């Protein structure tokens, strides 16, 4: 189908569905962009086409930077997300390697259990986690999120990496060990470079989820200026029944940039990482 030489077929079966899909996915971003640049008096003018810009303003962005702590929230989000991503990746690599490579009693069951942990909704998990955060006196600290985000990052990333490690021929590792490498050295020097696409895709996954997370950030770190971007934006740009739509959209657009950059750099690795093992029996 994709390789069809008939333009009409390619148009109908490839380009049109792709175009529809692209519009469907990009529409929210286009809408955010339009609203964030729309002058105040155009925002609710029902006589004009809402999808077009008839004027242009930076006022919503100016408000975001001058009237709120947006930059501080961004820094907080970055610190927390990077910290949680690194911690989650380290744990996930070890889990993925152990479950994907080593044969031990209960290994498969453990793999399923770890994945099932991903299905526990944060709305249930934040209650017991609150007790943990309190016990370690971490309220309002970056560590409260760096330590709690892995509860939902590790299960999926570990599962993803487990599948990826299984796609790498075990003979490579065995050859290294025959040559005298320890398991750790074989893992580090032979397996890790080969698993880089999978690790990158797991990293992007962790980064994205951590960057957007709301509930844990709200309950564990939302005092003073110690707020992440999702929490800060909602706290300061919604006043009772007044929502600052323009600035909310501006924050949404700016908040998407780091994730978009991360994806654009590593998109090839991300795709190969996610699809690894998909066709391997």
């Amino acid at each position, binding site marked *: 189908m994709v390789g069809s030489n008939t333009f009409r077929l390619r148009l109908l079966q490839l380009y049109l569905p792709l175009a529809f899909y692209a519009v469907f996915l990009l529409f929210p971003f286009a809408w955010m962009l339009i609203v964030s640049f729309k002058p*105040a*008096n155009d*925002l*609710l*003018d*029902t006589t004009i086409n809402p999808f077009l810009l008839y004027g242009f303003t930076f*006022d*919503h962005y100016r*408000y975001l930077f001058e009237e709120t702590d947006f930059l501080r929230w961004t820094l907080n989000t970055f610190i927390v997300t990077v910290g949680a991503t690194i911690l989650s990746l380290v744990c996930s690599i070890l889990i993925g390697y152990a479950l994907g490579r080593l044969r031990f009693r209960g290994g498969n069951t453990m793999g399923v259990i770890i994945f099932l942990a991903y299905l526990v909704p944060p709305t249930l998990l*934040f*209650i*017991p986690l*609150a*007790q*943990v*955060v*309190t*016990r370690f006196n971490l*309220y309002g600290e970056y560590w409260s999120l760096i330590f709690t985000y892995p509860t939902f990052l590790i299960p999926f990333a570990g599962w993803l990496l487990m599948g990826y490690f299984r796609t790498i021929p075990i003979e490579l590792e065995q050859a290294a060990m025959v040559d005298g490498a320890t398991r750790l050295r074989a893992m580090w020097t032979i397996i890790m470079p080969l698993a880089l696409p999978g690790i990158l895709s797991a990293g992007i996954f962790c980064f994205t989820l951590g960057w957007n997370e709301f*509930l844990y950030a*709200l*309950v*564990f770190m*939302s*005092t*003073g200026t110690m707020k992440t971007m999702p*929490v800060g934006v*909602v*706290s*300061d740009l*919604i*006043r*009772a*029944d*007044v*929502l*600052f*739509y*323009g*600035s909310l959209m501006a924050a949404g657009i700016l908040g998407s940039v780091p994730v978009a950059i991360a994806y654009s750099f590593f998109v090839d690795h991300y795709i190969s990482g996610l699809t690894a093992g998909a066709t391997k029996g």
Partner: protein
Amino acid sequence: MTDQRVDDLVREATRMRYSRRGIMKRASALGLSAAAANAAVIQSGKAAPKRGQAPSVRQNRTISILAGTYFVPEAQEFFDQQATEWGTQLGVTVQTDYINWPDIQARIAAAVEGGSGPDVIEMRDVWPNLYFENMVPVDDLANAVGESYGGYFDWVTSSVAVDGKWFSVPVGASSAAFAYRMSYFQEAGLADPKVFPATWDELFAIGANLKEMGKPLGQALGQSTGDPPGFAYAYMWANGAMEREEDGKTIAFNTPEFVEGMQKFVDAWPLAFDDTGLAWDDSANNRAFLSDQIAATINGSSIYIEAQKAKRGASTADYEVVVDPADIWHATLPAGPSGPFVQLGSWSYAAMTYSPEQEAALEFITWWTERDHFVPWLEAQQGYIIPMGPGLTDLEVFTGDPALAPYATVAEIARNKGYAGPADQKAAQVSSLYIITNTFAEAIQSGDAQAAIENGAAQLQRIYGR
């Protein structure tokens, strides 16, 4: 012997951060007398100060206060100043945090489970019924505050007190009334633009004219916590129905009067209301009104305040406010066969039992609810918050501008969620599931008032009938 045990208990309470209640429980477990338990409470610094009593001065304390982000930014800044002023006097560092108010509950849940969090929390509506086990009892303080302001309105007591006991001190609430454009209503046939239609039937009739003029009535009916239930509960009560009888269990929702009233509303919806209202949240009707899309809506005074701000060039809205505040008037909600009603639930301030600084937290609430501090805060709200009792409704902020007068007077006809029962946990559950609001939305969408009400009644039965 007893002194030694009291000393031990005080040390244990300090080390383990026991609350006042925790100390009392532990004292009971140790077999201490009531006098000894009280001594331990006092020595641990957990005793609640009496109103008017000079607060204790102990340095290096820190308390945090969690509240919803204010609609009136100046009032939020004023509260910060008050907290700082109080803290400076007593050597207490006060940290105030404001978040989107529906998110406060998640913070409370985490705080009570973790045993750590804000020392003082602004409770909304029926929340005290949900978290009272983690709130410091304040019977004396709440009663004293009530007495000093001429008592509490019934809906305040019903929504804040838990089985007759106070765990938080009421401070009033945002109110609800019809905001409407006098010029449009006059054009639509209202003889005196300052005399709003007295009944829902009259309003629907004028609404049909307004819609023909392109300026319909606007009613939010989405799953939102403010304006949609503000209408739905009031209309239900006005048409002879309520969630339950006084016994708290018998459902009184599916009544012939209400079915008839609901059918009138369903019939009026396409003729008199903005059709998009089914998807509106609390903010949508503000925008629709201020951008000249609709002629009237039920709301707090935020619409009027925003229009005034816009007129003096100080609007904080991110859209153009095109309505002149001189054309805005307010009215209490119209009457149905059973009369006029409005749904209100008081806000209140609580000191939390997990707080190691309960004493300071209570001192702050005590200080802040004194007339010299509370009235200026109320005035800083520019009429957005109405007081918790009739003793403050004659303040200039409520009487100075006749356009705002209904916001204070609706307090006299207000009922709490869960009426005729108290605003207890079950009422809170009904509210959080939007059962009443959804019944209206379902009736409009299906056109079958009877079926929608039967469905709503069945859902109420499942909750209240347990």
